């Protein structure tokens, strides 16, 4: 949608439109996740040490052989952390994917069909969203057991309503658009209208929501494992490491700092990815002015660019902004 606006803008200015690129946020996020993925894959196929058996002195510091030290049982921290990061990455990606699949399905149906179907789906969504994600994950986790796969299922179910809400809003706007009406009137079956005409047009908020949910899943998985309800021993998990190694903090602080860093990096990586995609897909308009320092001198130029910006702003543009506010409204579920 914004592509049209940029084309129009470039036309007015008499220039070829600049090619849009992903910004540093996107590449930063992708880079962090990529490096973690490579390290984790490397450690799970060719581990430096057996992650489940002692290979050095307990609570050892960094050395040539164990360059992140060892834990209280003498197991290599680096190998175990890489495995924990892998588990966390897989769980976050898979749970977000599951939530996206379920949520998109119901969101598209609710938005397209409307009426009482919409009302019922959205009330159920409201009801689930009324419970903090971590509580639902706790209760659902108890129902279907612990371990990575039940966790994926539980967290996928928890985050599906958010996806449904994010998908529904743009579909309602799209439903009235000419191309959708034309398809419907020319006898295209509803499921094909949804799959071929609506879905491709709501992929923007879908991707952003996906990455932002994945970052929340990382945090919730860590919290569940911290409470002893997530990934179970002996499988390494960053959250459980923190709760287990609190006792050894004064002897070997690395055992607390490193798992924390892994969680922060993973969550921030997904978050950066979401931000980067958001900026790429719906760039923000510059503010009309800026306070402080140099703003006074730069004001004329800024005002001018902003003015040409707004004169060509179209109806499409408001919709992407709308979907952005929708998205950020539902995306936040504190743990």
């Amino acid at each position, binding site marked *: 949608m914004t592509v049209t606006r940029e084309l129009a803008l470039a036309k007015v200015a008499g220039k070829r439109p600049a090619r849009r690129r992903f910004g540093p946020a996107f590449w930063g996020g992708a880079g962090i996740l990529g490096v973690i993925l490579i390290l984790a894959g490397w450690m799970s196929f060719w581990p430096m040490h057996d992650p489940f058996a002692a290979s050095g002195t307990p609570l050892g510091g960094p050395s040539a052989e164990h360059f992140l030290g060892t834990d209280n049982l003498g197991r290599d921290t680096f190998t175990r952390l890489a495995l924990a990061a892998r588990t966390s990455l897989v769980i976050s990606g898979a749970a977000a994917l599951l939530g996206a699949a379920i949520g998109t399905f119901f969101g598209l149906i609710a938005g397209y069909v409307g009426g009482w179907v919409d009302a019922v789906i959205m009330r159920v969504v409201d009801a689930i969203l*009324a419970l903090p994600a971590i509580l639902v994950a706790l209760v659902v986790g108890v129902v279907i057991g612990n371990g990575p796969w039940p966790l994926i299922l539980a967290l996928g179910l928890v985050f599906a309503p958010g996806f449904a809400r994010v998908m529904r809003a743009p579909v309602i706007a799209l439903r009235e658009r000419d191309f959708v009406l034309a398809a419907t009137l020319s006898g295209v079956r509803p499921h094909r209208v949804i799959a071929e005409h609506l879905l491709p047009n709501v992929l923007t908020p879908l991707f952003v929501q996906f990455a932002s949910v994945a970052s929340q899943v990382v945090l919730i998985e860590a919290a569940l494992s911290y409470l002893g309800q997530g990934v179970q021993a002996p499988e390494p998990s960053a959250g459980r490491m923190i709760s287990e190694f609190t006792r050894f903090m004064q002897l070997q602080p690395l055992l607390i700092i490193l798992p924390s860093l892994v969680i922060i990096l993973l969550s921030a990586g997904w*978050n950066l990815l979401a931000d980067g995609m958001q900026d790429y897909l719906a760039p923000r308009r510059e503010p009309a*002015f800026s306070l402080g320092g140099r703003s006074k001198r730069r004001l004329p130029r800024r005002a001018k660019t902003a003015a040409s910006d707004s004169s060509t702003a179209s109806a499409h543009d408001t919709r992407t902004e709308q979907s952005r506010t929708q998205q950020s409204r539902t995306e*936040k579920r504190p743990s």
Partner: protein
Amino acid sequence: MTRYIISRVFSSLFVLLVLSVLVFSMVRIIPGDPLAAFADPANPDPAKLDALRTQLGLDQPWITQYFVWLLGVVQGDFGRAITIPGEVSGLIATRLPLSLTLAVMATVIGTALGIPAGVLAATRWRRLPDTVVRGLSFVLLATPPFVLGTVLILVNSLTLRLPLVGYAGAANDPLRAFGVLLLPALLIGIVLAAIIARYTRGTLLDTLGQDFVRTARAKGASPGRLVTRHALRNALIPVTTVIGIELAALVGGTVVIEAVFSLPGMGSLLLTGIRSSDYPIIQATVLLIGVVYVVINFAVDLLYPLIDPRVRVHAR
């Protein structure tokens, strides 16, 4: 206006009904017998257990159990806890105040830090304050609160040794209770501040990019006045929704911080209930947390027309 309120009331009531069904059925699917704690593993006495089951109404069909439970809940009676002595309503009455206090304290801290930070970042777009606020909120958003909590407790145990853990109830010593709650509230508060700052920055930037702001600027309004009088009022409307949602979610969402600081709040009560599969406790806590959420959202919906005159016009 009345129609707006009535429609909000009905919608909220319906959500509550769906919520009660959800909570009830969720709990029934949990494997594990709530009476396991009463059975003597060496010498199980089925007759005695059956009698207990009948007494607790657990032998009834689920649908009957649901309506009996719902009828009680409406009257403020959540039944008896199975594994802990006492009425569930009594247990909750001792724990809800703590959770509410914690949530309100955290929200106040989060708002007090978050909104100014967000305004600072938005008005100094792409300059140093913006970068600092964005970077900080980014790291805070990615940091689990229990990491902050663990590190803080340990650092404190090595240095200052302030009495941080050990909540003894607000009745005996309100000042000490407040002190004990301050640190957990601060931890949740700064994470919340990160969320609020990000959101405020986003909406304020969107507002500052709008035509009416430029018009006002062209007519000679000073930037400071523009932000405080023109832009902020518009930008903060969606922020209030977010703050409301966060406050509501915090009432039950503090399980982890409660575990770190061993606070007897709603979250830890739920955790106890889950670990012993104590149906009444789980049902009551989860439902109550949901109810708090719905009620706060309802209140925010009612506040909306007061803050934003446009809603008032449309809602008529």
